[in-house]
Every structure is written in C-alpha cells, then in structure tokens.
C-alpha cells in the first residue's frame, strides 16, 4: 500500500516535471539513500537510472520545485512576485525562474542535461527579460565586489560530464547583450567571460541567501533545492569556460533561427519566459499581459483587454509591410467584431485575396517564396491579435500549399489570378457549400414534434433550423446560453423573427430542461481525430447532460475544421478570454462585488473560451461528407487532406 501511495504524488501536475530530472552524480547518491528509506521495494534501488525518475525518488529530488498547492501560504506571494517580477533578489525569484524553465521546449535533451541546464538559465533570463528593472545596474555594482568568489567556486567543483551546451549557448547570448560595451574594448574575451560568471554567481548567491531568509519557508523541499543548486551552478560555469571557444561559434546560430521562425509558433507555450520575450521583441501588437493568471493555464497567452487597440491605431503608418486588408481584419479580431469560426476564416481568406491582388513580386525575388513569407508574416500579425482557430490554420495551410504548388512557368498575373480563384473556391466549396450540404443532411433528422436544443450561436445550426422551418417542419427550439458572451440572444432574435417557437434559458438550467429535449444540435470550432469536439466553452457540459438523459447529440461541423491532432483535455490548448468579462456584470452596478479586487494576488480569473467534448458523448457528426460517427473522423481527415492538397 505504501508503494501505491507514492505514485499518487506524481499525478500532481507540479511534480510531473521530476521526469526531467535525473540525478547528476553528486546528488544521485543522496536521493538513492533516501529512496531506500521510503521505498520498500529493493528492485527500484538496484536500478538507479529508473529509480531517480520514479515517483518515490521525486519527493526528495533536490531540484524539485515545491508543489505550490502543498504549501498554499507560500505560493500566493510567490506568484504575485513572479508576475510583477519586481525585484530579482526576492525569495520568490528562484522558484519563479525554475518554474518557467520547466516547459522549455528542449524535450529532446536527456533528463539529466535538462536539469542542469535549467539551473544555468534560472539565473540569467530574469536579467535578460527585464532589462529595464535595474538588473544591469545591480549586476554592474556587484561585478566589482564579487569576482573572486565566483572564480574560486569554479576551481573547487568537479565538472560533471555531458553538460547542457544549448543552455550555455543561450546564456552567452543573453550575457552578451547585458554587458556594457565599454568592457569589450578593454578586456579579452576570457576576461569578460570571467567577469560575467562572477556577476552571475554573485547574483545567485544573493538570491540563495534571500531564499533562506523568508519566514514562511514551511517547505523543507525548497531549502534543499537551494542548497543543491549552489554546487551545481559553478560546475556549469566551468564547463562554459572550457567550451567558450565552441560557444562563440554557436552564437550566430540562435539569432539566425530567430529570424527564420519569424512567426510565433501557434501553440507556443506562454509560460516559457525566454520565448515570450523573444516573441515580444518581434511583436507588432504590444499586448500587456494580464496579471494573476491561473496556475494551470499559464502556458496560454492572456492579455489585458482593450489596451492595445489605440496603440495599434497610432502605429498604422509605421507598420509598413502590413497590408491594410490584413490590418483591418486583425483589428476586427482584436476588438471582437468578427467572431465565429467561419466568419473569422472567411474574413482572413478575403484579406489574403486582397493581398494577392495587390501583390507584385519584388525584383530578384521568387513569387512563390516571397508570397509565402509575406503570408507568414501576416499570419503572425493575426495570431498576435487573436490566437488562430484550427479552421484558420487549415485554411492557411491550404493557401500556402497553393502558393507553393504554383507552376514556375506562370506569369505573375496568371499566378495571382489562379491564387485568387483558388481562395475563392475554398471559401465557396469548403465553407459555404459545406454548410449547405450539412443543412441538407441535418434536416432529415428533424421530425415533426421534435424539441431541439442548441447552445450558443452556431451558424450551421441556425441555418439548419431556418431551413427546417422553411420545410414546414413542426418543432420547438430551446436556446441555451451562458455568460459572458450571451451569443444565444442573437440566435434567438433571428429565430423568433422567422416565427419559430423558442425557449431561452441559461446553462444553469440545463439539467432541468433536458428531459423534454429530443435532439441536441451543437456547433464546433474543430473536430480532432480522436473524435473529440473542440467547441465553445460549455458545450461539453451540454453534451454530457444530454447523453446522461439519453438524448442524441448531433455535432455540425464542416470538414475543413477537422484536424489530425489528438487532444484529451481542454487544458493544453485553449484560449483565454478577457478576465474582466467574468468579473463584471454590465448594467448591474449593485452586484459588482469584485470591484477593486482584480489585481489582488489572491484572486485569479479564468475565462476559458473553448472546451473539449469527449467522443463518448457525441452520437453523430454531421459534415459535408455526410453523417458519420465520431470514430470515423480520422478517415475523413485522411481523405480530406488528400483532396485538400489536390484541389
């Protein structure tokens, strides 16, 4: 039983990262000892590499970040400090930097290397990311006093094998920027490096000292992590010195890479500080990040709403490469004027059509390549305005594919015409035409006397209901809605205007109302290849209640929104909305109890935009290829993708 309880700890999300930390030589022995104490099974002790990754070793791993929810008294101040990043010397900064390092993309690196690499970075990015907050001055001040100590530690510590070169490379890069330029002239490279190391060591020492001070250090884990961290750090420094020659060569590498991946990755992890900083440097839209983000959703971008619009408007004339049509669409996304998967996708494609129309190949450039690059930069602008939906991703893939496949023999005007008609055809066939087919299929499932429930304001479902009404079918509609968007009211308005009998309710009443429903029609933002439906938040709830009442759930989704990705929850990929939208109720000043609490460190708002409905709750997916069970989405994806490329 004891052995069964240990693994439980791993389930805790914070502790999961232990998988990345195998022991470096010195601390592995200690973990093993402790492990033997806790773990009654001798087998795990006999195989060290496995045991260090194993959950039992984890609770003692020196590098483990204290799980915040274990000592909740500690976490809140930490989080506040982390978000504010007010002072680098505060006790929180250490755990903050660690936490940030965890999701750093280098999953290919072996666990051991990653653990060490993370320490190196833990000291630097704070400095590089916050150039304005006095880090430079502090570092400069320390540089005079501490160099000796830094150097001594280097000599004392033995160097563990196989260090994270990538990490050191990044460090070098950031250091280079930090260094005052005057140093460069006087000192040799080695000297400069030594000074840097010293500065860093001093900083780390100051931090570590600070880390022991705070009164609330209930977690013994935290203190151990600090202790072990110290010996580990100089070792990396020494290694760095030894590979310094190599590093200088590598310096050119990352910056080039930077340029290449001009667009931020659509699924960028926003809790990875270094990447966020990089992305910000490139960003056109200066978004202020919201404070107090919910722990589990830190990897998603969340911005203060409404701050960037005026800023962007003033910038209009400075953004020379941006096409006005794209710019307009971006602003419309930003302000929420265009919402809904199809509307957003069509707007984007039409903007791209404009782009193609006004395009002329610059001299000595290839149309295919230059246009692709242009589209990429536009897409990255649109991402900054609002994260892409999966359907838009598919549409962009289509456009890029068409550009790439343009025969080189075509003249520019011909190529442009071909592209424009391709995009036009995509809009007509895959979006508008698909909706027609979906309506045709879905109407066959509506019988006289049905009570249909729908949630939110899916366009496809609206078309179905209107068409069924035109066919003189007798049915009733239940529109279920939810705060804060209240999109259902719009749908309700349009349905009532046509004379359809409707009932309007909020999602709170779903379990009461469900027993009289005969069919549930839902829309979807995307359908993933395991049959999961990714849709407006609340959809999963409706589908689950419906399936509990044994009411069939029909999801209407165009096939261009299908994606081969598999997603099991709505956490890893989602979109965060404006937190103010849920904290305030418009027109109800009397119940705005949260006024003035929005920046409180103890309060986080979570306004999720989407959720994932498991395929078990879905009876049927209606798509332009007919009515299919959720299990055969992969077949459609396969067939569709083939066709998609051939179109």
């Amino acid at each position, binding site marked *: 039983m004891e052995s069964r309880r240990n693994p439980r700890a791993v389930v805790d999300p914070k502790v999961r990262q232990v998988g990345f930390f195998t022991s470096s030589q010195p601390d592995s022995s200690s973990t093993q000892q402790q492990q033997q104490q806790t773990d009654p099974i001798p087998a795990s002790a006999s195989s060290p590499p496995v045991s260090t990754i194993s959950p039992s070793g984890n609770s003692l791993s020196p590098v483990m970040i204290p799980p915040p929810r274990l000592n909740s008294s500690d976490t809140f101040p930490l989080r506040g400090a982390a978000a504010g990043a007010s002072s680098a010397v505060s006790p929180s900064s250490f755990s903050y930097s660690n936490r940030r390092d965890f999701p750093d993309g280098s999953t290919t690196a072996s666990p051991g290397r990653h653990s060490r690499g993370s320490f190196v970075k833990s000291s630097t990015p704070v400095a590089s990311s916050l150039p304005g907050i006095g880090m430079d001055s502090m570092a400069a001040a320390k540089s005079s006093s501490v160099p000796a100590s830094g150097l001594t530690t280097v000599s004392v510590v033995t160097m563990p094998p196989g260090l994270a070169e990538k990490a050191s490379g990044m460090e070098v890069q950031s250091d280079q920027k930090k260094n005052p330029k005057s140093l460069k002239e006087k000192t040799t490279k080695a000297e400069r490096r030594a000074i840097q190391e010293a500065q860093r060591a001093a900083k780390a020492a100051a931090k570590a000292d600070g880390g022991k001070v705070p009164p609330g250090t209930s977690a013994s884990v935290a203190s151990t992590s600090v202790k072990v961290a110290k010996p580990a750090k100089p070792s990396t420094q020494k290694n760095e010195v030894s590979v310094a020659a190599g590093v200088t060569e590598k310096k050119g590498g990352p910056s080039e890479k930077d340029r290449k991946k001009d667009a931020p990755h659509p699924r960028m992890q926003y809790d990875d500080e270094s990447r966020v900083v990089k992305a910000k440097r490139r960003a056109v839209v200066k978004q202020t990040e919201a404070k107090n983000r919910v722990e589990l959703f830190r990897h998603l971008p969340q911005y203060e709403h409404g701050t960037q619009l005026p800023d962007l408007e003033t910038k209009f004339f400075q953004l020379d490469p941006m096409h006005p049509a794209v710019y307009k669409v971006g602003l419309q996304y930003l302000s929420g004027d265009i919402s809904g998967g199809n509307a957003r996708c069509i707007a984007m494609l039409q903007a791209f059509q404009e782009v193609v129309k006004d395009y002329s190949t610059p001299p000595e450039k290839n149309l295919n390549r230059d246009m692709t690059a242009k589209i990429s930069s536009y897409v990255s602008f649109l991402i900054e305005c609002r994260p892409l939906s999966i359907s838009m991703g598919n549409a962009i893939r289509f456009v890029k594919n068409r550009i790439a496949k343009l025969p080189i023999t075509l003249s520019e005007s011909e190529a442009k015409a071909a592209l424009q008609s391709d995009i036009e055809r995509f809009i007509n066939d895959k979006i508008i035409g698909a909706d027609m087919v979906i309506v045709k299929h879905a109407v066959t*499932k509506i*019988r*006289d*006397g*049905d*009570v249909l429930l729908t949630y939110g304001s899916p366009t496809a479902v609206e078309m179905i209901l209107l068409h069924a009404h035109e066919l003189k079918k007798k049915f*009733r509609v239940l529109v279920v809605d939810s705060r804060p968007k209240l999109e259902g009211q719009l749908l309700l308005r349009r349905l009532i205007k046509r004379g359809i009998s409707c009932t309007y309710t909020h999602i709170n009443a779903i379990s009461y109302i469900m*027993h*009289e*429903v*005969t*069919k549930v029609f839902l829309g979807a933002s995307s359908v993933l290849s395991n049959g999961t439906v990714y849709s407006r938040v609340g959809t999963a709830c409706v589908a689950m209640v419906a399936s509990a009442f044994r009411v*069939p759930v*029909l999801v209407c989704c165009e096939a261009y929104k299908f994606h081969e990705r598999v997603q099991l929850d709505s956490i890893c990929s989602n979109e965060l909305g404006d937190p103010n939208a849920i904290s305030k109720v418009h027109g109800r000043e009397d119940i705005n109890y949260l006024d003035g609490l929005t920046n409180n460190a103890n309060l986080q708002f979570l306004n999720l935009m989407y959720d994932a409905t498991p395929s078990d709750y879905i*009876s*049927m997916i209606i798509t332009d*290829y*007919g*009515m*299919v*069970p959720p*299990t*055969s989405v992969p*077949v*459609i994806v396969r*067939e569709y993708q083939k066709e998609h490329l051939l179109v």
Partner: protein
Amino acid sequence: MWRRSPSFILDRTSSSPPMAADTTRTPIQNPDSISAYYQTRAAHHGVITSEWLSQAQAAVGGVVSGDEHPVSSLNELGNEKSFNVIEEFNSWRKQPDLAEAVAAIRALAAVIRASEATTMMELEIELKKASDTLKSWDKTSISLTAGCDLFIRYVTRTSALEYEDFNSAKSRLLERAEKFGEISCKARRIIAMLSQDFIFDGCTILVHGLSRVVLEILKTAAQNNKLFRVLCTEGRPDGTGVLLSSELSKLDIPVKLLLDSAVAYSMDEVDMVFVGADGVVESGGIINMMGTYQIALVAHSMNKPVYVAAESYKFARLYPLDQKDMAPALRPIEFGLKIPTKVEVERSARDYTPPQYLTLLFTDLGVLSPSVVSDELIQLYL
C-alpha cells in the same frame, strides 16, 4: 422515455398517416402497409430446408443460364422500364437462398442487358432510374437499397469505361455486374470461414433470428467437428427459432429452444451471441429482427460477446439515432387470443442495435469492429 412528450405524441400519430402518404407518392408501392421485405422473409422461412439450401449452393454457380428466359421475354414485351425491373427483381427474389440485395443486383444487370441505350450516359441514367424504382418499391428493405447503391457505385465508378467504345464498355459493365453478383454469393462462404476461429469446443451459442449466414457458420463449424451447443430463441411471430433448431438438429448439433423472454434467464450459460443483420448502418450498429436489441443489451450487461454476421452488401448509408428514426417496417402479428379494438399492437418487425452493444462484425471484408463500418462506407461512397 415517457417524459419526452413530443416523441410520445409522434409515435401515436405516426402509426397511421405516414404509410398513407407513402402509398400516394409511389404508385408501385406494394398494396398494403406491410413490409415486403419481411413478407418475403416469412415466406422463405416456410420453405427453407436443407434441400433448398443445397440446391441454392449449386445455383450460385449455374443460376444465370437457367433464368435467362424471363429476362428476355419481359424485354420483348417492351413494357415501361420500372415495371420490368420489379418483375425481374421478384422473379429473382423467389429463390430463398438468394439474398434480396443479390436479387436486386441480378435485376439491375438484366436492365443493362436489356437496355437499348447507345451512350454511356444514357445507360447510366437508365440504371439509376431502375434502381430508384426498385428502392421505392420497398422502402423498408435496407439490403435492397444498399445493394442497389453499391451496384451503381461498383459498376459506374471505373475510369476504364471512358476510353472504350460503347459496346465493349457495356459488356464490361455486364461483366462487372456478374462478378459483383458472384462476390455477393461467395460472401456467405467467406464469413463462415472467418468465424470459425471464434467458435471453440464446448461453447454455447445463443442465436436469434433465422439468418442464412449464421446457419452457414454453424454448419461449417459442425463440419469442422467442433463441439458446441446452440440455444435458439423462439423468434415470435414467425417462429424462426423453431425452423433453425430443426435445421440444426438435422446436423446433429445439440439445440435448445427458448422463449424470447427467457434470454436473460439463460444468458449465464451462454458464451457468445450470434445474430444476422438486415442492414448494417453507418454508426456500426445493426438493424435486425425485433428482439436483437434486447438480447444485445442483456449480453452486454453480462459481458458476453455479441457477434454479427453480415455480408458487406448490407452496409447502408443510414444513420438512425434511435429506434424511431427509421421508416417503420410493419407486419401482421398473431397473438392467438382476440385483442380488443382499443388495444394498440406494436407491429414493427425490426429494431436498431447501437454499436456499443456489438462486439464484432463478421463480414466478407474481414472481421470488423463496429466503428470500421463507417470507414468502409466512406471509402466506398466518397
């Protein structure tokens, strides 16, 4: 269910008017509201014997030559096409061993043979019209609809046809039609072979309905000297189980006859359930003789596997959401006692079993899990 008032009301109203609407729309609709498909099934049940089956086995190969006559004679009459097709179809359908879909395929092949069209397009339109009349003739038969659709796909979806002159293209079409008919006949054999791995010595099999495929499976198992026991449900109102059990007893297979209501009682001793299917729908569920759903439910709750034996021409592009989501197939039911006129009688001949209650489907495409059905259908029709 009772709480869902609208569907309850709908059930009431639908029992009479929809049929009337159907008959007015299609003039060639069979006379009364009774499902032709189930009528033929019932008629066949009366005559299916081992002699019939052995004769049918022989017919698989040589049947074409023997029945050439009615085709030509009908053509000479020069009647309108729709009449022609249905007569043809009915003449084929009389053979008890010939599945409805195969009969339809043969009938459509005859249409090609008799056609006076001079272009491919004309022929295709003619074929389409013929299959439409066939389909509208008996809307309740899923395998008929599916067979027609499949045949049209199979015959017309070939790029090779475009390059040839009309006569060779036509003969090629006929070739394909013959081949398709043969494949359909062979399907039963293939399924019987595939299913042998699932029947182990000492097992007890519950069978519901009189399915020719299931009978073939059990017969093959007996020929392979497998030792097993069969429980047959009675199969009211046709008494299908009585017929099946008499067939099996001729093969020296130990058989026990059950009341339809005794399924749950005896499910404990059952190792697996075998059923046939009138149609396999896109969700992977099946439409079969009334009672299949409840047997599947009982078996599912007791963790017994439910195996379905169905030829691939029974795969239909249908997607019922629940029991009422199909065109009702009605048939007369005798209760023995006199029933007061105020009492309603549920006369539906079939029910829909959702895929989550099925374990595997034995088809001539292989042994499939229910979710694969949709994949096959998508690949076939898209």
